């Protein structure tokens, strides 16, 4: 290491000290420790990035998993089904909520990952789904869960269509802001339409569903139920991806003009992906309502939208399994950080930054990376 680099690093951290100083009061002593850790991590990652062996190992793993997809899926499913037998009720609750987020992330992946449309207020659809179920089954007790479930999906889908028709004519970041606006509008209405939504207090006493003689009452049963729904959603998304729909979506993401010139109705395909996402989000919302038994606007903040988006990106944009993985990571990981209690979110934010900086393509890599690995082998063989 050259002396110049060291001076540079020194100034870098001194400057950081300076900006954090006003907030720290007497606790400045911690900072150098943190800086030292950050510095060390940076060095390590640089080493890892330069080390071709590690890169090749990762590619090997990606290819291997891609080749034994069925086996991998069966294995994961078996573990997922068996998990409740060895978990505490608390852990099952956490896992169930991870399942719901996984549904959301898979749904969002359709628009963000496949069509390349950034949606920032996605939780709005989730809220619509949850409130539809809440209002139908508890507030006015109009029908049972099994009727409310599809209706929740459809209600969210309707919102998606109503929002999509004007909004999808916009491009990129403008569209993102409009969806962000939608999320906020939903939340503000939920807070203020007291008679319908219960206002800030929300809706209480939403019952868990029953099916004939069985109720899906126990945490464990509900977990399985959510798992089944997730499996269906993932299957549906995967099948769409590997069909003309998925291809058209990706084509639009890559180049709208070329896609249109090849006869693809860009607007309708956008709207389709948007409303499908909304539908699945509504279904997830419905499950959320019955899982909690209680919903209020506080559960549907911008932060939740961001969280779901992070799941998609963290797992690897456009990667179906990536979205699910991202969801589990982001829900289960903070649980392990519980011991840090108040520092949990601080660490979480820092980890998010670090993760993106060091693994910009997400944990599992985008669809592209996996294919590049295969294509490289072709090129090598040719």
């Amino acid at each position, binding site marked *: 290491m050259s002396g110049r680099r060291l001076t540079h690093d020194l100034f870098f951290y001194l400057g950081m000290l300076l900006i954090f100083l006003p907030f720290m009061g007497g606790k400045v002593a911690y900072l150098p420790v943190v800086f030292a850790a950050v510095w060390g991590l940076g060095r390590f990652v640089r080493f890892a990035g330069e080390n071709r062996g590690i890169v090749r190992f990762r590619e090997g793993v990606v290819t291997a998993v891609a080749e034994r997809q069925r086996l991998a899926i069966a294995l994961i499913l078996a573990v997922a089904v068996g998990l409740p037998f060895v978990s505490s009720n608390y852990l099952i609750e956490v896992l169930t909520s991870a399942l719901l987020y996984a549904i959301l992330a898979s749904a969002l992946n359709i628009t963000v990952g496949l069509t390349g449309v950034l949606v920032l207020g996605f939780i709005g659809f989730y809220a619509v789904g949850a409130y539809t179920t809440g209002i139908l089954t508890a507030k006015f007790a109009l029908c049972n869960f099994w009727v409310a479930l599809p209706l929740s999906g459809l209600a969210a889908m309707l919102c998606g269509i109503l929002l999509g028709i004007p909004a999808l004519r916009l491009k990129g970041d403008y569209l993102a802001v409009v969806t962000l606006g939608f999320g906020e509008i939903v939340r503000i209405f939920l807070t203020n339409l007291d008679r319908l939504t219960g206002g800030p207090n929300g809706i209480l006493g939403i019952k868990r569903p029953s099916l004939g003689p069985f109720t899906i009452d126990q945490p464990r049963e509900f977990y399985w139920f959510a798992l089944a729904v997730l499996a269906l959603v993932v299957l549906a998304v995967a099948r769409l991806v590997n069909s003309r729909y998925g291809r058209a979506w990706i084509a639009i993401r890559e180049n709208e003009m*070329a896609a249109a010139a090849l006869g693809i109705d860009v607007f309708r395909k956008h709207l389709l992906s948007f409303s499908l996402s909304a539908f699945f989000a509504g279904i997830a919302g419905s499950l959320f309502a019955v899982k909690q038994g209680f919903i209020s606007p506080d559960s549907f903040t911008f932060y939740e939208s961001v969280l779901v988006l992070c799941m998609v990106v963290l797992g690897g944009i456009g990667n179906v399994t990536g979205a699910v993985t991202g969801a589990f990571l982001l829900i289960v990981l903070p649980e392990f950080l519980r011991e840090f209690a108040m520092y949990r979110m601080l660490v979480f934010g820092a980890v998010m930054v670090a993760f993106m900086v060091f693994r910009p393509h997400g944990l599992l890599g985008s669809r592209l990376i996996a294919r590049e690995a295969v294509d490289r082998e072709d090129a090598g063989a040719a």
Partner: protein
Amino acid sequence: MSDILTTDNISVAFGGVSALSGVSVEVREGEILSIIGPNGAGKTTFFNAVTGTFPPSAGRVFLEGKEITGKKPHEVARLGLARSFQNLKPFAEMTLLENVLIGRESHAVTGMLATLLRTRAFAADEERQQQKARELLAFVGLERRQESLARNLTYGERKMLEIARALALEPRVLLLDEPVAGMNPTETGFVMELVRKIRTQGITVVMIEHDMRMVMGISDRIYVLDHGELIASGLPHEVRANHRVIEAYLGGGKHAPTH
């Protein structure tokens, strides 16, 4: 021969600047027609206006006698008017096969439900489209690379992929925007052969091109654009002799384009 594509006085203006003014052309069925002219003459603008990418501000466009003015690009494409782009636009993160399959989209018939349930009809349709896509890749000489990602193609290969993709629409008329720009003579020869083969399949070809050997070698007729206006049209040798064309484009100077 009847006219398959005609424009009636189309004009395009961008923010007050006229890019195309009062251009009327008739494209005859089965011919190879070239549009030439200096850069900025409005050739690509003409393609954009015809295909609905940037609709004309005045005038009308007819395809097989039906008016298509102001229709969306995808509607125009489905009616049988396919195009390639000057700046290459392959779907970089898709394989070659998938790229061509996008062009088959308007011929695919399976619905959402069949796709989700993976019905037999779905499988049959998918197989049919893939078969056709493979044939097209073979047609342009890319069959061995069908599983490669489009981003890993060379420049010339990308141009070929664009043509295959446009052909996947099974168009009546194919618009090619500078198909041989930047290619060496061998590759140019291959494309010339390809364009002739496309015509024998009953597809009318309209192309924008700077390469005079290509233009003079395979065109049935030529239109010349300059400053957004049509300044000449006719058979290759007529156009070559037209003094306005020489002045505006071909040039007599010692540094005139020689290739």
